[in-house]
C-alpha cells in the first residue's frame, strides 16, 4: 500500500497553482491516498500480459491535410483578453521562466 504525504499534496497543489489551506491539505492527503489504493487494485489485475490502454477506441492515424483553413482576425483573437496592447495579450510579470 502506498502512502501519500502532506508534502506531496502541497507540492502537487503548487504545480497545479491551487492554493490550499492546512485543513484542505489534510483532507486531500487522505482522499488521494484512497485513490492511490484504488489504482493499485487495478494494477494487481493488470499483469505484464495486459497491454496498457490509453485510448479505448481502436483507431489510429487520423490525420489532417496540410491546407490552410479559416482563421481569426487580430481583434477576434484578442476579444477575450483581460488586457491587450492592441496586438498582443498583456499578462502580469512572470516570476517563473520559459519551459
Amino acid at each position, binding site marked *: 500500500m502506498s502512502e501519500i504525504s502532506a508534502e506531496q499534496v502541497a507540492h502537487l497543489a503548487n*504545480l497545479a*497553482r491551487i492554493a490550499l489551506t492546512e485543513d484542505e491539505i489534510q483532507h486531500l492527503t487522505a482522499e488521494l491516498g484512497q485513490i492511490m489504493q484504488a489504482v493499485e487494485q487495478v494494477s494487481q489485475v493488470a499483469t505484464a500480459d495486459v497491454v496498457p490502454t*490509453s*485510448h479505448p*477506441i481502436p*483507431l*489510429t*492515424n*487520423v*490525420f*489532417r*491535410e*496540410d*491546407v*490552410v*483553413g*479559416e*482563421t*481569426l*482576425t*487580430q481583434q477576434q*483573437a*484578442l476579444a*477575450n483578453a483581460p488586457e491587450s*496592447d492592441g*496586438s*498582443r*495579450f*498583456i*499578462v*502580469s*510579470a*512572470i516570476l*517563473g*521562466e*520559459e*519551459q
Partner: protein
Amino acid sequence: MAKAALMDYDRALELFEPVIGLEVHVELNTKTKMFSSSPNSFGREPNTGLAPLDLGLPGTLPVVNGEAVKYSISLGLALGCSIAESSRFARKNYFYPDLGKNYQISQYDEPIAYEGEVEIELANGRVFQIPIERAHMEEDAGKLTHMGGATGRIQGAEYSLVDYNRAGVPLVEIVTKPIYGTEGDAPEVAKTYVQTIRDIVIALGISDARMEHGNIRCDANVSLRPRGAEQLGTRTETKNVNSFRSIERAVRYEIQRQAQILADGGAITQETRHWHEDTGATSAGRPKSDADDYRYFPEPDLLPVQPSAELIAELRAALPEPPAARRRRLKAEWGFTDLEFQDVANGGLLTEVALTVEAGASPAAARKWWTGELTRLANAAGRETADLATPAQVAELAALVEAGTLTDRLARQVLEGVVAGEGSPQQIVDARGLAVVSDDGALIAAIDAALAQQPDVLEKIRDGKVQAAGAVIGAVMKAMQGKADAARVRELVIERAAAE
C-alpha cells in the same frame, strides 16, 4: 551579475573529462500548424492568422498534420533512427502564458523515432559518431516579450506581451545520448553537430532552417567528471544558444566554469542556465524540474500514430545522401584545397556554397563571397552568415561580376544592399546606379577632363610608354566613383593617342 571564476581551458581538461548532450529543436516548414489548420508562417502581425485552438480556447480539439508526421519520419530516418511502429502524443503540463492551454502537446514515452547515429567531421578532420536517443514531435510555444525591466529580460519585468503566432508550429526535438570522448573538441563537436543537423533538414527540405528566426534552437548539456571517474557529474543545461558561434562558446564557458567550482571543492547545481551573447557568459536560471513535475500523461484528444512499413520505405527511398558522403562528394566536385574546404565547413556554409553552385556560380566564386565578404558582414553585425543572403542572390551577384557589370568593389556595395534587404543584386544595381559604366559617351567625357589635367599623357603613349595610360584610368575611376570599365577606358585612351 558577478562574473563566475573560470579555470584555464587546458587545465580544466587535464583535471576533468567533459561529457555533453545536445537537444536541438527544429521548426518544420509545413503550410499549417501541428494540430490546427492555421498558417505556419514567420513575420505576420502579432496574433493574426490564428485558429481558436492556437489560443487554447475551450471546445477546440487538435487534429494531427499528416505532412508534419511524414517530415518527422524523414528526419528520424536521416538521423539513422528506428521509426516506432506505434507512437503517441502526451501532455506536458506547466503554467506559463506561452501556451494558452496550460500544457504542451509533445511525445514522452513513445517518440516517433529512437536510437540513431549521426556522423560529423570537425574542421581538424576528426570524425565523431553522435549517438541519438530520440526524435519526437511536439508543438512550439508563443513568444513572450518582457516589458518594464531595464533589460527586457525576465528579472524586473513589470508585465509581458504575448504573441501566439508561433504557438502550435510543428517541432521535432532531437535528443542525443551523452557524448563521450570529445575532450578539448567538445565545443566544436557541439557546433558541428548542430550545423550538420541544419544541413540535413535543408537537404530534406523540411525546415527553413534560419537560426535568426529560431527555426533551429539548441540546448547544450555539459557535465564534468574527474579523470578516471565512472559516474557522470552533475549537468547544467544552457538554453538560448541560437547561433553556431555561441553554441561553441557556451560549451567552452561551462567547462571552464564548472571546472573552477569543482576544483575549489564546490558542487555543480543541476539547473538551466541562460547564455548571454553580449557578455559571453551563462547565468543561473531555474532549478531543473523533475520530469515528474510535468505530470505527463497520454494525450486523450489524439490517437496513436502507426506509420505503415510502405510509407516508411517510401520516405527512406527519398532520403538525400548522408552528410558524410555529401561532404566527400562536394569536396571532390569543387576541387578546393583542404584549407579552403575547411573554411567553408567551419563556417557552416557547405549547404550555402552547394546551393550557390547549383544556382550557376563557380565553386570558387561561391566560396569567396560566402566565406569572405558575407562572413565579414555577419561577424560585424553579430549575425549568422547563412541568414544574410540567399544562395540565389549570391549566384546572381557572381554572375554580374562574371559579366563585367560589377567590379569586386561594386559587388561588395551591392552585397551590403542585399544584406540590408534592398532586393536582388540586379535590383540594387539598378536602384543605386552601381553598374560599371562602359558607355563610351560618359567615359570619353571623363577622359577629356582627365587629359586636360595631364596633357602630356598622349605624347608618352605615342612614344611607346603605354603604361602612362594608367594615370588617366586612375583619374577616370576616381571621377566616376570606381564605376568606370577600366579596360574600355584604356582602349579609348590608346585609340585617342593613335588618332591625334
